[in-house]
């Protein structure tokens, strides 16, 4: 047992910190720190900078271009990039599809798709959720029927909550290929070209004015049979693999730290140093965040791998997301009356100079509202607690 990071880990931390400090473009950093909207361009720019350094695919095996980090290094990387003001790696292709293709894709699929994913040439949309199948993916109803000649699937259905579909030329989707099978069987994992006839993307306007989520309508979309990943009717297991893959970052500890630092910074600017209640709240957050961070590291070291049991991941997610929301609410309290002015345009860097309120405060209320999604997506807090309780009761 040792509380300190190893000298090598500390050196790595400094390396990442220095890299972010020198390579992260100033305007991107400013957007992140002020909570403004990031464009596709911003992500691509930063991801390519990371790719050049070999750091864009921490979750991929070394032979496919992963950096070969252990869990502590991955943790340090997440924390340092976020505290340094870098955007999160949010690309579904990198985070989700890559590992699935590497594990289950054909050689041809790997060759065709992985390089473009790594170089951020192709962004992928995730086509899992459907109306009526939010936290319950086994209820997927979008159908894919293989044509008699075996050359194409014909896909019909309706996907929702598809992040960044407006930036994605491709989508990976769960589709039902055997309607007679039990809910969790008869599902396949399909790659769909978004330019195909019959695909329609409709943005969903969100309550804070953003529109990065979409509905995707699939109307007799013809998909080449070669776009099936793995075996027919086995898509459910690939989907579960995918969802289980990225659990180390699930608690969002780096984001929590980023927001808590923001809260302290703005509180000082607003002259709230002497507000004993606020300071006690921030200190309490700091302690709870510390407990969360140590728990993540402890569970990771106990498992000695980046895949973590689902229950442990659920515990980290519940705690991390609820803590983050509490910090965002405190940010609104810190803003006071300056949380009131808002229109979606103020989230554009270009409009910052026109600020009705100090620029540090422009996005706080919108960020707080936007943060409500984190206890909903990726399995609601309610579903996570059901799972945690079930495990505790069975143990």
């Amino acid at each position, binding site marked *: 047992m040792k509380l300190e990071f190893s000298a090598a880990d500390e050196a790595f931390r400094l390396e990442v910190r220095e890299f972010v400090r020198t390579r992260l473009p100033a305007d991107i950093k400013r957007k992140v720190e002020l909570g403004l909207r990031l464009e596709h361009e911003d992500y691509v720019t930063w991801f390519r900078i990371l790719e050049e350094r070999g750091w864009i695919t921490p979750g991929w095996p070394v032979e496919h271009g992963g950096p070969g980090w252990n869990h502590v290094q991955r943790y340090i990387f997440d924390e340092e990039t976020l505290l340094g003001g870098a955007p999160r790696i949010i690309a579904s292709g990198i985070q989700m599809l890559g590992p699935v293709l590497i594990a289950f894709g054909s050689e041809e699929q790997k060759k065709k798709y992985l390089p473009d994913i790594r170089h951020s040439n192709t962004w992928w949309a995730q086509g899992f*959720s459907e109306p009526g199948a939010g936290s*319950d993916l086994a209820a997927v109803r979008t159908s894919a029927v293989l044509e008699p000649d075996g050359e194409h699937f014909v896909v019909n259905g309706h996907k929702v909550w598809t992040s960044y579909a407006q930036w994605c030329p491709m989508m990976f989707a769960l589709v039902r290929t055997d309607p007679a099978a039990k809910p969790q069987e008869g599902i396949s994992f399909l790659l769909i070209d978004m330019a195909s006839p019959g695909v329609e993307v409709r943005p969903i306007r969100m309550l804070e004015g953003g529109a990065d989520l979409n509905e995707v309508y699939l109307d007799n979309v013809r998909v080449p049979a070669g776009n099936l990943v793995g075996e027919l009717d086995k898509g459910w297991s690939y989907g579960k693999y995918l969802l289980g893959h990225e659990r180390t970052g699930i608690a969002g500890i780096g984001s929590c730290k980023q927001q808590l630092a923001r809260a302290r910074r703005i509180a000082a600017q607003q002259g709230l140093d002497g507000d004993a209640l606020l300071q006690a709240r921030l200190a309490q957050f700091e302690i709870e965040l510390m407990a969360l961070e140590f728990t993540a590291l402890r569970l990771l070291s106990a498992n000695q791998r980046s895949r973590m049991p689902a229950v442990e991941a659920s515990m980290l997610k519940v705690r991390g997301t609820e803590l983050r929301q509490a910090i965002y*609410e405190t940010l609104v*309290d810190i803003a006071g*009356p300056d949380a*009131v002015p808002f*229109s979606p345009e103020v989230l554009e860097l270009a409009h910052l100079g026109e600020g009705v309120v100090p620029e540090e405060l422009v996005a706080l*209320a919108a960020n707080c509202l936007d943060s409500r999604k984190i206890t*909903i997506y990726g399995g609601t807090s309610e579903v996570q*607690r059901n799972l945690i309780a079930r495990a505790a009761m069975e143990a």
Partner: protein
Amino acid sequence: MDFSLNEDHLALADAVRRFCDGEYPLQHRGNPESTDEAARRLAGMAEMGLLGLPFPAAFGGGELGPVEIMLAAREFGRCLGGGPFLSGVVMAGQLLARLGSDAQKEAWLPALAQGSLQVALAAYEDGARYDWQRVATRAVPAAGGYVLHGRKSLVLNGDAAGLLLVVARTSGEAGERRGLTVFAVDAGTPGLAVRGFDTLDGRRAAHLALDGAAVGADRVLGCAGEAADDIEAVLDAGAAALCAEVVGAVEALMEHTVEHLRTRKQFGVPLARFQVLQHRVADMAIALEMLKSMDCAAAMALAGADAATRRRMVSAAKVLASQQGRQLGMAAIQMHGAMGMTDECRVGHYAKRLMVIGQLLGDAGHHLRRFDAQRQN
């Protein structure tokens, strides 16, 4: 101690409810108003007497009191409507009615009641958070009146107002209670710049820049330097109306949520069958009862003569309204799942309004301190 509503009360509430049901269709509640909608709703409110509700009959008013304002505000909370009611009638209008000379009242109150003039109150300043006594805007005596210099912030409905009631200092230092004076400034006055902007809840507010705006002596409301008590009273009236809005909004939020839980299924079972969600609805129902009692108490305290009681009751009500309103808005979003995050679903609009209300006219922390200070006095 009597919390019962009489038949006149119920009739008023019913009439406003019917007006709101007609003017604010369910699926558009919370959306920004078009110019047409705003004009039509204003005309409707004038016709119903809502825009003159508390004013003396001699000036076109209905001579009704805080309880009636509360009942109307609850209904506006329900439909996320009300336009200039809070800013123009409850705050600015009542300040005019309290401080104005007969000539001043004659000049502006009937127009306000008819909807032909909008009036807004410019009380707060940048950097002062919720301390309305921290006024740095100065009124310097000049030939025939005063010249105003300073900045006022977050004037609700400020860019639609034809008349702005500007709180400025004729003596004393920022933070002092003495020396505050209210000036009625026309929107077009040279030296006054009005900068309108959107607010989080789809409404409008404005910052004012006063750079040598000249006003005549006839534009002083009441005695120079003596306006503090009346300003505080109408800010309390505004806060109490916000508490009533919270009651209406939470009521609507609860209806939406119950409807969603009863109809939406997960894992093949209606959400209403999940005990965790049931208990959250129970907590919402309990909170709603508490909020209802406190908006009544605040309204009754406004009607009473004792300023200390009024401060205590209004601040107590606003603490709960700010805390519970925001929390229940968030809880309703969570119970609606991803759908609750969309602009299309109404719960997000309620959550935004509730969040904004929490930050207006003193947040929970401000009012908790104010409440406690009254105890210690």
